[in-house]
């Protein structure tokens, strides 16, 4: 996942290869980052269920098939 000034800049950069699947703004990423790795430094950490991470994406405004952690055709 790479940082660009804009979606247009990313599109120009990727023009020779595969187009990007999705974008989030820096603001969204900053919000998402707040809790995504919460607890990882604890010895007792257990991986959270997919629903937990999907809810964090949704709370940051990242919805739709491109941000689905489960294959859309299996939902």
């Amino acid at each position, binding site marked *: 996942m790479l*940082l*660009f000034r804009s979606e247009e800049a990313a599109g120009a950069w990727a023009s020779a290869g595969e187009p990007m699947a999705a974008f989030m703004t820096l603001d969204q990423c900053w919000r998402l980052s707040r809790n995504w790795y919460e607890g990882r430094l604890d010895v007792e950490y257990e991986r959270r269920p997919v629903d937990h991470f999907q809810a964090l994406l949704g709370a940051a405004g990242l919805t739709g098939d491109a*941000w689905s952690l489960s294959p859309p055709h299996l939902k």
Partner: protein
Amino acid sequence: MTSPGPDQRIRHHVYSALARGAHAPTAASLAATLGVPVGAARDSLERLHAARALVLDARTREVRMASPFSNISTAYRVEGQGSSWNANCAWDALAIVRLLHLQDARIIDDGGHGRERRVLTVVDGDLVERDGVISSPRPAWRWWEDIVFT
């Protein structure tokens, strides 16, 4: 409360080292620290890799990633509190600041391959620059098909 199992202890040692800004311990080093055979440490690392708790290098089978930290140099790094950390990607660079509760930090994107170099700053626990987007090269449900690429 039960004491942590061997896999938990190894995962915790890896994360603790990376959070300090050090490299992740090797399997041999983990074995020596925990007083277990190297083979047992390697088996733990493989189980943690299979559980997506960390990512092993495809060739050496040593730790490559323990997200948000990278155990190798990448285009992204975070500097703060007199230390520095390698991140797997732009998102993970921001996440390192959050995870470590850094109040003042610099997030450095070295750019390269046609991308510009940028430095983002965190002041008093808040991200100053908000202009920009972070790309996802594939849909979220396909991230783990090749997490190193993602």
